[in-house]
């Protein structure tokens, strides 16, 4: 069994009176891709955001239970949220480069964490862009605005930006839903490469994508995990009728 990088136990989340996550227990193994699937509003993106405390900024949110990364509860009082987010980076649905140069987008994170040496930053920028499979496309235009890139390139830039702070977990919220098939395919290949070094949790609405790229799949419905198993089992012989109905497109 692959060691677990991150897990949740009895995780509950409320938006005011709305009970959005109901006692979620989920293990996310190391150097694996865990896909979160389920209809809109089922809680999968909310769950993803609890994994690096992105919900902290929402005033009405209340959370109980445990979210554990490398054996430590990330909601413990002594946890520094900036350090946590360095360890667990997030990539969003729409590419969201900062309105600055390609270089500065990548160097932004390391600079925030105190890196000032040009030579070190140069190295991080190149390595991150290489790891995100976009270096060859941008190496001659590092000083150009990141917003001049195509959508697919912008998304790989955002992945490079999250890699720059040397995270251990990558959280991806529908990272290809705004992209064309070719860019989607490039991101999927990239995810397959990245899982050698990172533990990845990805929210996706694309069933074939979940089947293609993930090792484990969790099916969320109305804030609960209905089924969590190897992706092979979920997509060949789901145990719960609701999972089968969802993945075969009969509801949701």
């Amino acid at each position, binding site marked *: 069994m692959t060691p677990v990088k991150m897990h949740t136990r009895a995780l509950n989340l409320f938006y005011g009176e709305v009970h959005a996550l109901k006692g979620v227990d989920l293990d996310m193994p190391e150097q694996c891709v865990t896909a979160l699937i389920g209809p809109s509003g089922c809680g999968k993106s909310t769950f993803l955001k609890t994994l690096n405390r992105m919900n902290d900024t929402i005033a009405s949110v209340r959370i109980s239970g445990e979210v554990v990364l490398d054996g430590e509860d990330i909601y413990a009082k002594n946890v520094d949220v900036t350090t946590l987010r360095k360890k667990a980076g997030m990539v969003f649905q729409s590419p969201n480069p900062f309105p600055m140069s390609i270089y500065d987008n990548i160097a932004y994170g390391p600079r925030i964490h105190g890196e000032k040496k040009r030579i070190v930053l140069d190295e991080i920028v190149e390595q991150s862009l290489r790891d995100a499979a976009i270096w060859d496309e941008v190496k001659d235009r590092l000083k150009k605005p990141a917003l001049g890139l195509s959508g697919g390139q912008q998304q790989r830039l955002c992945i490079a930006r999250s890699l720059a702070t040397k995270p251990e977990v990558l959280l991806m919220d529908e990272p290809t839903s705004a992209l064309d098939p*070719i860019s989607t*395919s*490039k991101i*999927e*290949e990239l995810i*397959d490469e990245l899982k050698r070094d990172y533990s990845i949790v990805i929210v996706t609405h694309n069933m*074939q994508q979940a*089947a*293609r790229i993930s090792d484990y799949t969790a099916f969320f419905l109305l804030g609960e995990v209905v089924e969590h198993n190897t992706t092979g089992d979920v*997509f*060949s012989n789901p145990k719960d009728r609701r999972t089968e109905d969802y993945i075969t497109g009969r509801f949701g």
Partner: protein
Amino acid sequence: MVRKHYDQELAELHVDIIQMGSLIEKAISDSVTAFENNDLALCESIMLEDKAVNDLEKVIESKCLWLIAREQPVASDLRKITTALKMITDMERIGDNAADIAELTLRIAEKNTFADSGHIPQMAAVAVTMVHDAVASYVNTDLALAQKTEQRDDEVDDYFNLIKQELVSVFRAGKEDMDNAVDFLLIAKYLERIADHAVNICEWVEFSVTGKHNNAQIF
């Protein structure tokens, strides 16, 4: 490269089909060699090796199903994958027929042996070539080869009729007993079935290229 994995998996599928093709070609050739030489050990090994063909069929079926589930193939990709699923059934049957020949050879050897294998070796040579070309036409998407191979079925049928006539003559002359003659004819029949399965494969290859199966446009 875009969809690198997908292309890799399709390439691996072809490798598996080529391997399955080699196994069944060898099984047919060996079964006829065993028959000609009365080689009982070879018969036993052919019957054992048929399991490898059956196992490979399962591997290929599983790969095809996962390709469909994961990659949502369309157009020629979908035709190629469904063709693979269809043709391996015929390939598996060819493996069974070769094992059947080996089993018959064992049975014949218990009672008697034939002094002369007649036209069986020539008939088998055509059947093996047909199986080889049918699989090659799939792997290389070679419609012309598939169509040419289908036509060779007549040669095999002619051999079958010839062997049948020869057996009738032999029987009438009282040179062989009836039991032996029937087994001999069954071997020829299995070879004739093998050629039919090769034709079925070619018909699916035509579908994979044109979307037509036996002249009906189905996808």
